């Protein structure tokens, strides 16, 4: 879908995705093994395993209620699975807390947008830098030494992201006043400000019109290419995601029913059945 489809070079040989990004997909950065999660008697996830390799775009798709959001929430520590392990950057963990996940380099966006509505776009994105502040309390309060220098650096970084996502015109606008599509973009900007190694996108294109969807696709690809960020995104609509993902996991009723390249997944009978609603 991009004009540079013919222009790829050195894209890592056989592993190069059809999307033409000039990046080398590496070793697994995140491994999910046998994860099961239940709320009371409801089994949201049942023995799900998959891995995410460095620098790839990995989609988790499935019909509504398939357990996609639960999976994302397990990865960044909102839910704690009853069974199974999550290994991120070689470290297994059982009970991770959300803010620790952020500190380890997992950024995320939300399906229903979680922004600081009372703050401006700029301030929102600046909060993404919060974990990176190193100067001391006193330096900050008195605005001396390191604090000032640091603040300017963060501001610069944030401006780069603003430029990258083309939201200069709303820099000073309170987020609550923005239309939905732009709010989604600001949320992505804030996640990027954290300079995450792994970016979790929860239905980034939900509720958008076609043009906004295409913009968002472009940004996701650009983020992946420019910063080398590993991206896990979930969507219930197969369409757009297939074009930009390297590999796709398909969930249905909390189980993994397929895992592979978009083409493989598209041809998978179980997937077709799940999407067409064939009874099990």
């Amino acid at each position, binding site marked *: 879908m991009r*004009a*540079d489809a013919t*222009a*790829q*070079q050195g*894209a890592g040989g056989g592993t190069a995705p059809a999307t*033409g*990004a*000039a990046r080398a997909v590496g070793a697994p950065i995140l491994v999910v093994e046998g994860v099961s999660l239940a709320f009371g008697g409801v089994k949201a996830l049942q023995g799900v395993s998959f891995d995410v390799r460095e620098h790839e775009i990995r989609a988790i798709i499935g019909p509504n209620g398939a357990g996609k959001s639960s999976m994302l929430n397990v990865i960044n520590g909102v839910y704690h699975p009853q069974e199974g392990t999550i290994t991120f950057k070689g470290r297994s963990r059982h009970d991770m807390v959300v803010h620790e996940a952020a500190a380890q380099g997992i950024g995320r966006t939300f399906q229903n947008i979680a922004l600081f509505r009372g703050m401006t776009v700029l301030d929102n994105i600046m909060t993404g830098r919060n974990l990176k502040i190193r100067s001391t309390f006193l330096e900050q309060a008195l605005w001396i030494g390191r604090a000032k220098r640091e603040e300017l650096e963060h*501001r*610069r970084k944030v*401006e*780069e992201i*603003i*430029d*990258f996502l*083309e939201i*200069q*015109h709303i*820099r*000073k606008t309170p987020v609550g006043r923005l239309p939905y599509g732009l709010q989604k973009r600001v949320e992505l900007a804030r996640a990027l400000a954290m300079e995450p190694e792994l970016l979790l996108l929860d239905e980034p294109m939900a509720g958008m019109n076609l*043009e906004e969807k*295409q913009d968002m696709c472009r940004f996701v690809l*650009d983020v992946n*290419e*420019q910063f080398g960020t590993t991206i896990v995104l979930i969507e219930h609509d197969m369409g757009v995601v297939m074009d930009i993902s390297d590999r796709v996991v398909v969930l249905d009723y909390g189980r993994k029913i397929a895992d592979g390249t978009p083409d493989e997944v598209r041809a998978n009978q179980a997937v077709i059945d799940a999407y067409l609603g064939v009874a099990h």
Partner: protein
Amino acid sequence: MAETLDTFPRLLMHHAKVRPDRPAMREKALGIWQTWTWREIAEEVRLVACGLAAEGLTRGQHLALVGENRPRLYFAMAAAQSLGAIPVPLYQDAVAQEMVYVLRDAEVTHAITEDQEQVDKLLEILPECPKLAHIYYDDPRGLRSYAQPQLASYERLLERGRDYGAEHPGFFEAEVAKGAAEDTAAMHYTSGTTAHPKGVVLTYRNLIECGRNAAQMEGLTDREDVLAYLPLAWIGQNIFSYTQWLVAGFCVNCPESPETVMTDLREIAPTYYFAPPRVLEALLTQVTIRMEDAARIKRWMYGYFMGVARRVGGRILDGKPVGVADRLLYWLGDLLVYGPLRNVLGMSRVRVAYTAGEAIGPDLFTFYRSIGINMKQLYGSTETSVFVCIQPNGQIKPDTVGPPAPGVEVKVTDVGEILIRSPGLFREYYKNPQATAEAKTPDGWFRTGDAGYFDQDGHLKILDRAKDVGKLVDGTLFAPKYLENKLKFFPYVKEAVAFGDGRAMVCCMINIDFEAVGNWAERRNLAYSGYADLASRPEVYGLVRDCVEKVNADLAADPKLANSQIHRFLILHKELDADDEELTRTRKVRRGFIGDKFGVLVEALYSGRKEQFIETKVRFEDGRTGSISATLRIEDAKTFAPAAAKRAA
């Protein structure tokens, strides 16, 4: 040889010598205004020129510029001229196919683009433009994996220039010395409303003399600030942000992005400003919307003091006598309303502001003057290097464009067409002697194609395009643009297309302003799903009917135009769009094209039908096409008997 400042490169070198450390250009990047001094620019232009020479650009060849107002595109323009090559700016929002003609016609070999978007377009049409061998880009974003051999970054070009300059000392200076006043300085393509665009060849003498005369008339100095926000391809942008920049040596500011222009305008607060009527209109619409949402006391204050301004603001600006009480009220209004308003509009420092491009509604024009902005009308075209008529300070009339500018001769033919002879008159249409001969008389007059006349004070009044002015069957003058402009002054009306030539009555198609009407609807809790839905609402029809009837009441008061009142109208289901060829790239309505495209609607308007089904092809931004259909209501508007309206008024 003594230094004669008769080419742009020489002017640039002159400023680098005379005011080396003054700011010459600014651009907002990463939220901060970055400044280039004249010295820095001269140095960079030298590098780019050497780079281009190294890459094979030679005297007489054309360099295409594709992008928004970015300093580097301006540098490239000066660099090309230093080598004797000719810059050809293209409209950056044109789709790829529209660029083919110009690139082929001008046999463009080198192009400088802004970003990936523009590069993608040029790559798409590369097979159709075999001569285009070098494409440079300013912003490398997203282009890292592109491997086309034609492609290189601007940085790479600078590097090449550094090497080439080192190998060929004195090359740049020698090239600049070769330039002459009669050389082609730039080529701007006219956005043809009907046929292919024509390349207008302008010499250094054309542009510099014209720019200099106007600058002297207005007293422009090197302390002016200008915001460069209109398309580079448009001749006005060249004059205000390039020619006069180099003539007067002031500072040109490039906005951060097209969406931030309003903010940037406020931050820069230019002293010298140009805006076509549609921009002024959009600004006023924004103000009106904001005032409608404001607190009651604010609304009252605005209403009251705008009344004062309408009464005396223009007179005060013109230096005419005004009573002490009114003066005091105006002063208070300036403190409370006009001052803050000018600030919001980014016009608090404006000394000279022009509007041109098309006729401006008198109400719109007087609005700006009444709040103390020295807004003036200008008449000109690409072929005349813009300046033909300028309204002098203190002699402003809303319905004329002023007397001829210094050095310009204007005459009106028997059939009412305006002819012009001036130092700014173009040399020719590129590779098109036939068109040149049609446009220029043997004794050097340029046929503008505009109809108009001089009033008793010697000010030129423009009616319409000569070919567009028609007659109703009863012989009444039908000046469609005049009617359309009257409608467009209402914030709710975005575009209007009037029909009536050779017909018994005038009918009209209308585009509502989505933002303004949407806002209006929201305040009334009127739900709608999109443009087409909103446009079809009976409430919206009522709103528009009020506008049409107010126009009719106005027309009834003018004996010459009373019979051209609008009898029937409809609201179109789609916004008129340049991508669908309904507007020109400069956003003028193409009346003939629209009349053909929406033929069934015209038919329905005149046959008295109450509604009409229509299906229309549209082109999306990504180049795909689709179609939309709707059943449009057609309504009658009240018209007024000339006498009755006079009594009411």
